[in-house]
């Protein structure tokens, strides 16, 4: 079989050039492809259009690529935790497209499911709807307006999973799932970093979240920091 297994992030990202569109899985700092982000910083890949729900924090996640000005444009739903981001955005250095979170997720799903466009009510009557096609449907007992939104296509999708096998099958852990399976389906080339890479046959076929057909390259990641953004706890009583 054509080998999908790569040694590390450097090998898996070997052909990424400047000015490409990359989807990054993760929600906040949860379930982000730490190894690949570090490698992109090391490589110095420039002019990235990043599709990612969030922009990381100042010194972690996609924030690392913002600090080094490697990102030309961000397509996100929420970027509130990153001061450098806000500064670059308000100064016009960084191009930003903010879109609703569900729209972002569903536009990835649409690409993975071969659907060129979807309809969503999110953003109707707001500035998000500007220039977009609005259409009325009767659905779920109500007549309502929906926006036509196009599938997202990306040169690369970079995702993080908990377990993966040599065929590219992926299983995510808890809320580190988030956008990862959707982006994995939407990349022209999809690269997965996993905490545990196992031989084909070790994962239960019924429990696979992303079938290997969607994954082109996979490698065992290392040194996961898994930083917590908001550590909230309760005291034992």
């Amino acid at each position, binding site marked *: 079989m054509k080998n999908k297994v790569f040694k590390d992030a450097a090998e898996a990202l070997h052909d990424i050039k400047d000015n490409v569109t990359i989807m990054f899985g993760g929600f906040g700092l*949860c379930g982000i492809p730490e190894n690949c982000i570090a490698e992109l910083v090391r490589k110095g890949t420039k002019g990235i259009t990043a599709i990612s729900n969030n922009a990381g924090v100042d010194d972690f996640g996609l924030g690392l690529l913002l600090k080094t000005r490697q990102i030309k444009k961000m397509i996100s739903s929420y970027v*509130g935790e990153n001061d450098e981001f*806000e500064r670059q955005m308000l100064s016009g250095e960084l191009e*930003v497209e903010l879109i609703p979170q569900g*729209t972002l997720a569903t536009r990835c799903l649409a690409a993975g499911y071969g659907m060129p466009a979807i309809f969503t009510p999110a953003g109707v*009557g*707001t500035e998000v709807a500007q220039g977009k096609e609005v259409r009325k449907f009767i659905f779920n007992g109500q007549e309502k307006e929906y926006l036509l939104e196009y599938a997202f296509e990306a040169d690369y999708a970079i995702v993080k999973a908990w377990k993966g096998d040599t065929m590219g099958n992926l299983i995510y852990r808890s809320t580190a799932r988030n956008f*990862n*399976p959707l982006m994995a389906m939407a990349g022209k080339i999809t690269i997965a970093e996993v905490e545990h890479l196992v031989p084909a046959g070790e994962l239960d076929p019924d429990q696979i979240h992303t079938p290997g057909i969607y994954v082109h390259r996979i490698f065992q990641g290392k040194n996961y920091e*898994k930083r917590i953004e908001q550590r909230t706890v309760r005291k034992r009583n």
Partner: protein
Amino acid sequence: MLDKNGIAKRIAREIKDGMYVNLGIGIPTLVANYIPEDIQVVLQSENGILGMGPFPYEGEEDPDLINAGKQTVTLLKGASIFDSAMSFGMIRAQKVDLTILGAMEVSENGDIANWKIPGKMVKGMGGAMDLVASAKNIIVAMQQVNKAGESKLLPKCTLPLTGVRCVKKIVTEMGVYEIVPEGGFKLLERAPGVSIEQIRKATAGKLIVEGDIPEMVI
């Protein structure tokens, strides 16, 4: 006047047994603390949880398990995890019974603004536009006046909108309001010790006061 916890307590009374509820960031998050113990409610977090539980005990935080506010949380028995497309899918399909969220402004026809202050704050809408466009029942938890003393219940929103004609009910430090179909904030309840006169002054949009307005029971 109610404090934040008072608003959360009053909203908790809107929650019925068996409901699936999405709680936004801020005051709505506090609502979870006041859900009566004799009813069972399933909390949805739009990053992909049904059955969200309280914060973990110290030392038991799991970086892979956070809520939509990026806080470490736990799962209750019977919880499920799913991707973001399914999460917003169930929101759009109106499977979530009740959405509680904060607002910077609400207009008398139910428009809401809570994501952007032009030239100043650019955090993004996150899942708020999806939630308000889809939810079958939306309650807004907010302060009725801003720090400058200006009403945030307006004839028309001045900030960029999050959604149009979607808010059903509003609970503030001063009262409970229903948005009526023809437009207007219909006063349902007063916060303890708050007069109708005070409420009138704090409501820039059309206020509807019909008959006796009871004090809230919290």
